[in-house]
């Protein structure tokens, strides 16, 4: 089977002679090229974010996009006279996306060459490909979830949060509390799994195990009494973040094996990973089970390593590890914790199933 191409998470558009039919600074009445509006709207519906890198006067070009009714589709527009490679870099940094998930489209070969020279991971397209992008596999996510269709709105809510945080003068935790965060942990059903699939594909940064679980594998595990598949959603006063996390837990009587923990990089700054771990530790403590987390260090999941260690996980050996499924990959470490009861999160409300109680019922049988 051929490798699937990395899905483009953000497409950066040039404006003059790519989005519209001319040079705005010479002709203020330029109009959209045929098919551009449809392409932008279709990509947006698929959850591909879009931005702008244009050498123009900001107010003039942005005003024209507003007049054309397209401005709302673009996040973090970079309209200035600087190099386009700088513009693309800024967009990737603001979105916290890897450059390999960014695409750039421009009519000028020199601009594409400039971006390609400085940022070889960015995929570049010529303007005459604009209306056929939606037919390319890298712009065609296999599953388009409710969250994908609302991704841009969720990001835009995210920018308002960031702006508020910049203006917030006070303790870190007080800011988090001011967001009215609500985390909902639930057992996954078939519908949730399409979101989970997307999350584990997209958020390699916070996929702590570094091990990919396919949709099919997770679906099988849904029905397995020895496993719990849980999804996590987050909401705050600015709106929903959608599905932001997934856990796969292998449950034995004396030890719970956390095989997969992925959280979206969108919610890293809210400490969602730590809140999840804290909840899990408390559940395991109630069940009287040790916790073992599979962790494969990569250059992108350092934060998850720190989250595990700060939660109390260590590399110390324990007999309980011997009874677990063998690891497929010898680069995966097993971090261990003897859980104790934990206080609930101070920064958000958490709703969740009672894993410990449910498991006790399952293992001991119903009376």
């Amino acid at each position: 089977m051929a490798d699937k191409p990395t899905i483009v998470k953000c497409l950066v558009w040039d404006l003059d002679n790519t989005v519209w039919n001319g040079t705005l600074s010479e002709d203020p009445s330029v109009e959209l090229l045929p098919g551009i509006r449809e392409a932008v709207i279709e990509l947006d519906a698929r959850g591909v974010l879009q931005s702008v890198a244009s050498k123009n006067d900001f107010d003039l070009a942005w005003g024209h996009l507003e007049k054309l009714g397209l401005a709302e589709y673009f996040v973090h527009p970079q309209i200035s006279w600087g190099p386009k490679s700088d513009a693309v870099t800024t967009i990737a940094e603001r979105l916290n996306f890897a450059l390999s998930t960014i695409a750039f489209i421009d009519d000028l070969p020199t601009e594409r060459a400039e971006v390609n020279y400085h940022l070889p991971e960015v995929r570049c397209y010529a303007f005459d490909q604009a209306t056929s992008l939606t037919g390319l596999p890298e712009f065609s996510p296999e599953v388009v979830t409710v969250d994908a269709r609302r991704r841009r709105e969720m990001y835009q809510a995210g920018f308002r949060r960031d702006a508020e945080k910049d203006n917030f003068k006070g303790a870190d935790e007080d800011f988090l509390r001011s967001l009215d965060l609500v985390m909902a942990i639930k057992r996954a059903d078939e519908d949730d799994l399409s979101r989970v699939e997307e999350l584990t594909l997209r958020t390699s940064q916070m996929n702590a195990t570094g091990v990919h679980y396919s949709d099919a594998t997770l679906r099988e595990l849904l029905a397995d009494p020895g496993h719990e598949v849980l999804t996590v959603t987050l909401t705050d006063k600015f709106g929903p973040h959608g599905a932001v996390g997934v856990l796969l837990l292998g449950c034995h009587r004396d030890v719970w094996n956390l095989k997969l923990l992925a959280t979206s990089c969108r919610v890293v700054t809210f400490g969602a990973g730590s809140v999840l771990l804290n909840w899990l530790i408390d559940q395991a403590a109630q069940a009287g089970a040790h916790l073992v987390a599979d962790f494969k260090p990569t250059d992108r999941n350092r934060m998850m390593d720190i989250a595990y260690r700060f939660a109390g996980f260590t590399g110390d050996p324990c007999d309980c590890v011997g009874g677990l499924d063998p690891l497929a990959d010898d680069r995966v470490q097993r971090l261990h914790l003897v859980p104790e009861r934990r206080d609930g999160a101070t920064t958000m409300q958490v709703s969740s199933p009672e894993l410990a109680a449910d498991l006790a019922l399952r293992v001991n049988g119903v009376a």
Partner: protein
Amino acid sequence: MTAESTTSAATAETIRHELLGFLAERIKTTVEPEQDLFSSGLVSSMFAMQLVVHLEEAYDIAIVGPDLKLDSFRTVESMTALVLRLKDADDPAGDA
């Protein structure tokens, strides 16, 4: 290298001073060296992670394994001690 000689000159006093300045800027509050940053809610667990990255970059150290304990980051004093210990280990005696 110049950068190395600058950082290896770090003493408890300079580290403490730099950390207090970093915290004042980032959490917009003045803290005491012995103040518990977590129990007072001044920093979240997320910010504690940023502290790890900050210390590593500022002092050219790697904080890994057993050193990655929340307790090591609880106060400015405990972070200062951690940096000094890791810099010592990294910089064996006699290495001029």
